């Protein structure tokens, strides 16, 4: 047990109260110091560094509005749609709570995508922050599950048919697929059983995991310290420090970044509330028009599109046609041959690599393209986990990378947006080709990163962070 601190009897009542608590719950006070008042963050954070705090804000908004929605929502196939309309019409301010939650879902993905992009361009995933990145990717995965299951709950046409399409994808997995899809649905079609289990997962299971991962993400971050736009370690052994050992290029998180983030939050809230109050459907992107029709298992909509934040991945799924499989098989065989001839490996390994490539190619021919579409869609997310070991650049930040790296990241972003756009559109022959090229680029960007990230002349990294006083 920690030493009991005595306090002068002449101290103020506030100081005495604080002392009383500190003697009985020192952990809380330590946590405040470690994570707020004495957590030194680099002083050169720019615009891109607001999105972590904003993600936290949106998470709180989603949890609080979600609690109030559950008070009136009915997870029952016969009542769900009506109960959402009841919230929209008869519950006082129910419309506001519901729009906050529906807009919050899209806002969550906006800030998380921007937050991830920040990590990508400044190399925030690199040593020693690999675990911070991996926890973050796990959060992203949870978020996708959370959004997918939450989208079923209003029980509109898009809710229903979107869930039907996605759950049916699992049925494409060889051997276990049909049983797995049955296990997820709890029925042979999406129905009341599906709605109930999705509700349970959406309000309890996934949020619990999500919160745990957020804590892990933040604790791991505070252990290794934040990266910054220059990619310089401000707490490293050679970094300049003051007499107390605090980094000269850092400032205490509280108050400097708390006031900074409150400013960012108020700007964000202006955009967020402008959408809630003036365009809650956001042109059919945040609330799809078809979802104002109650789910009808007998009437399939002409065009089923997931909500915008899933569409880049949905595009990649649709890109995998049986024609595309030949291109993928060629890629696998080429990779096998290159690995066997170019890499310095014992000849036994070479044979294993070549043999493996042939086996994979054979499987790709034997199993339906639909299954490989699912693999590609899943792989597009899973590949993010490996980013720390794919990037071999000599410097972390894009600022000191060769110029053409910047263009490559630019193309990556454009490609991602194009894939997202195509995922919203009904299938078309041109769209299919473009999405196939886009899919190859997306995977090429990551899988070839170990090579291309080493190429080119990096710029000298300064000793101190770039910072212009305000």
């Amino acid at each position, binding site marked *: 047990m920690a030493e009991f601190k005595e306090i002068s009897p002449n101290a103020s009542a506030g100081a005495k109260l604080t002392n009383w608590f500190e003697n009985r719950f020192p952990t809380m006070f330590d946590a405040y110091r470690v994570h707020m008042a004495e957590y030194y963050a680099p002083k050169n954070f720019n615009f891109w560094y607001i999105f972590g705090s904003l993600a936290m804000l949106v998470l709180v908004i989603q949890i609080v509005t979600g609690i109030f929605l559950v008070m009136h929502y009915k997870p029952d196939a016969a009542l769900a749609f009506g109960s959402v309309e009841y919230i929209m019409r008869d519950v006082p301010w129910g419309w506001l709570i519901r*729009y906050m939650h529906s807009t919050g879902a899209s806002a969550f993905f906006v800030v998380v995508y921007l937050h991830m992009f920040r990590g990508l361009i400044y190399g925030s995933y690199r040593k020693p922050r690999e675990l911070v990145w991996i926890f973050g990717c796990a959060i992203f995965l949870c978020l996708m599950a959370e959004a997918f299951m939450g989208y079923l709950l209003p029980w509109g046409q898009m809710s229903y048919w979107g869930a039907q399409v996605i759950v049916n994808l699992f049925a494409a997995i060889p051997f276990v697929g049909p049983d797995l899809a049955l296990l997820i649905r709890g029925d042979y079609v999406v129905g009341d059983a599906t709605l109930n289990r999705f509700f349970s997962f959406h309000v309890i299971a996934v949020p619990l995991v999500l919160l745990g991962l957020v804590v892990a993400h933040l604790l791991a971050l505070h252990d290794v310290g934040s990266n910054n736009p220059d990619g310089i370690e401000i707490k490293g052994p050679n970094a300049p420090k003051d007499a107390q050992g605090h980094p000269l290029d850092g400032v205490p998180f509280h108050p*400097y970044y708390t006031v900074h983030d409150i400013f960012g939050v108020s700007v964000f809230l202006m955009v967020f509330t402008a959408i809630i109050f003036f365009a809650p459907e956001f042109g*059919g992107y945040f609330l799809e*028009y078809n979802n*104002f029709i109650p789910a009808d298992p007998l009437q399939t909509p002409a065009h089923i599109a997931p909500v915008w934040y899933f569409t880049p991945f949905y595009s990649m799924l649709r890109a995998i046609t049986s024609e595309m499989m030949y291109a993928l098989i060629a890629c696998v065989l080429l990779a096998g041959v290159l690995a066997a001839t170019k890499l310095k490996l014992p000849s036994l390994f070479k044979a294993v690599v070549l043999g493996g490539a042939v086996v994979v190619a054979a499987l790709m021919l034997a199993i339906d393209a639909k299954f490989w579409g699912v693999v590609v869609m899943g792989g597009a997310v899973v590949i993010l986990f490996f980013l720390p070991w794919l990037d071999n650049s000599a410097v972390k930040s894009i600022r000191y990378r060769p110029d053409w790296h910047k263009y490559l990241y630019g193309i990556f972003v454009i490609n991602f947006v194009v894939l997202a756009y195509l995922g919203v559109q009904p299938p078309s022959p041109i769209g299919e080709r473009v999405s196939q090229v886009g899919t190859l680029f997306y995977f090429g960007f990551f899988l070839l990163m170990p090579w291309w990230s080493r190429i080119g002349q990096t710029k000298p990294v300064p000793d101190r962070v770039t910072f212009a006083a305000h």
Partner: protein
Amino acid sequence: MKKLILGLITALGLLSGAHASSGGGISWDKAPVNTSDVASLQNGAKLFVNYCLSCHSAAFMRYNRLQDLGFTNEQIKDNLLFATDKVGETMKSAIDPKQAKEWFGANPPDLTLIARSRAGHGGTGADYLYTFLRTFYVDEAKATGWNNLVFPSVGMPHALWELQGKRRPVYETKEEHGHEVHVFKGWEQLTPGTMTPLQYDQAIGDLVNFLQWMGEPAQNTRVRVGVWVLLFLLMFTVITWRLNAAYWKDVK
């Protein structure tokens, strides 16, 4: 930073425009929607309960919500209540769903959210409804004797035909890419309605206005509150901006 904000604004514009462009069939007319025009909404409500509710329901809409449009409970009870005698009830239709299916080939859809669900490439849901209700025509080939330009082979007969009269579309033949195509040119009035075409358009405008309002009765409140919320946040942002600057001015 400025470039970035500009870029984001343009991106938003592109997004909202993406759904408005292109589309098939005849183009939708712009509906004269104004959900703060109480007289129009009241007229629309009257038309709705008189002409639509006998076959369609509005199962999520309560009669007493019409108070928002300036009706008193007594007025609602005396003039607008046909299927029930409780103003707290929702607007159910008198028709039996099984019979409806037999008569029209499909259940008449619930109309509570019709203006929200019918939006699409051609425009808003209100635009669609405004066009739909004004493009019925006589077609002896159909079981009901009616057809529609934006919803070909629709199961619904022209419920408002007495107001509009009977009409027939006139087509002209045009050459397009080497093919002969029929292009809609205008209408031929077969029998007059009790309303002039102008009055009819106005009545449909009121009805669609009501449908738009009914899709989200809170929409006027939403916009009104939104203005105040944004004004508050604008002031709050100025304060937080200066607060941030005050703290950071010492960081060298």
